[in-house]
């Protein structure tokens, strides 16, 4: 549920955005071209206004942008909000990292990096999904945990297939999601994944040996 206060707070963003829109429209050159174009391309002019209106509404009324899966959103419009901490600062100096470990049929351990296994160099969506699902499977409500565990199993199945397709002759018999906690403090050295007390297994899926 989205709190009313959150809806109110985010809707305040409409103020500066629409002030900027008004300033842009009041610019003599923009207004002149817009009115001129409107004489013959009325639909196009209306479409441009609609585009910027929907974009501003999507910006102000999209909540919890990194949740997965999401029920409602304005896709292909989205909220643009990076490094915006709701409480003004990160209250927790701990950093949670999620690592996917694969165990092959001959007992070797492999690090499964979804961004390397699947997408082009710039698509980062799958590692964001790892974080979103890892967070909710690990620390979410019981309902969210069950849902995230089911989605993670689907996800792991896809990773298994892709790993085996890109590594002919190798088969994965187990995939595990680990959470690694790193404290942000001076002289800290991040630990290696899957080892030590900082790494905790969140979920694992086993597959029959081929």
């Amino acid at each position, binding site marked *: 549920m989205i709190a009313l206060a959150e809806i109110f707070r*985010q809707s305040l*963003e409409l103020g500066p*955005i629409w002030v*900027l829109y008004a300033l*842009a429209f009041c*610019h003599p*050159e923009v207004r002149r*071209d*817009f009115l*001129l*174009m409107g*004489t013959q*391309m009325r639909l*196009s002019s209306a479409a*441009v206004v609609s*585009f910027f209106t929907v*974009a501003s509404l999507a910006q102000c009324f999209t909540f919890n*942008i*990194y949740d*997965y899966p*999401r029920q409602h959103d*304005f*896709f*292909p*419009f*989205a909220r*643009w*909000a*990076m*490094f*915006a901490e*709701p409480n*003004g*600062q*990160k209250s927790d*100096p701990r*950093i949670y990292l999620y690592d996917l470990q694969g165990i092959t049929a001959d007992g070797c351990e492999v*690090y499964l*990096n979804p*961004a*390397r296994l*699947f*997408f*082009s*160099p*710039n698509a*980062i*969506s799958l*590692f*964001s*999904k790892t*974080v979103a699902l890892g967070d909710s499977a690990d620390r979410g409500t019981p309902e969210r945990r069950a849902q995230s565990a089911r989605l993670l199993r*689907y*996800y792991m199945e*896809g990773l298994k297939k892709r790993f085996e397709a890109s590594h002919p002759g190798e088969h994965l018999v187990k995939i595990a999601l680990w959470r690694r906690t*790193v404290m*942000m403090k*001076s*002289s800290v050295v*991040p630990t290696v994944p899957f080892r030590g007390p900082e790494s905790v297994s969140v979920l694992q899926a086993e597959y029959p040996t081929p």
Partner: protein
Amino acid sequence: MIYQNATPRDLGLARIVIFGLLLARLLMDPVEQLADFPVGAFAPHGLLNLIPSDAMQWLLTSNRLLAFKWSYAVVLSLCILGLGPRFHIMLVAVLGAIFYDGLTRGFGGHVNHQELIVTQCAILMLFFPCYNGLAVNRLAHFSEAAATPVMLAACRLGLRAVCFWIALTYFYIGVARLQASGIKLYFTNTMVLNAFQHSLRAGYWNLGLGRNLPNEPWLQVFLSISFPLATALEIAAPLAVFVRKLTIPLVFCLLFFHVMIFLFMNLLFWQNMVLLSLLVLGAARRGSAYFFPVDSSVPD
């Protein structure tokens, strides 16, 4: 303002850049590999909810995704060349872009914003007569008539709308950050924590400049100082469209900002960086034609 003397050729060039970006990212992406995921791993979002789930399941096989990829690549190529009935071809291209981004979002949960921005620029281009310059369609016409005032107004407005949208995305981010966090955010180590976290996450790139942040006090100071400056830059970004003298300095700062994000957080916003070139072209576009002669107008 930028693009004071824009012609149909300028709008044609913007079309080539935007649809060229869509084609480049498609060709780099082995989208058919998404079929490795079980259908249950796909969660439709927004407009993709309009596609019946049976139809979606039918589509999500390796061969059909490959067929989509190459058909979509052909449509994008037509847009780049400026060939065929403009509105229909571009509408199919825009729907293809939404579907393609929707696949990424449905399987991955979120779409990298640098990819959404290109799709949104393509949506905007749909509303402007961008086949009247640098288009194969124009080869069939040898009209020497001067561009009409309405056509020139549409070209200027189209280019400024696209550039305004590119700048606006930065403005949105700046406003959202100030709204959510206020000023006190800039007196904390939030940026250092974020940079450290992103540099440790498994992504495609692995530059690791942020990995040693806890032991590099001067880097922490640099990040802490640059955080409010970056927010100010984001909020000032729309000025790059309205004050031509500020375009080049602001674009230069935004490019520097993206390079820093890449070095510290392993996130390369290459599509944003290419799109920013449209603002630079707009700043250079004044007086007489800069490298294309003034184009004639042909009804779209």
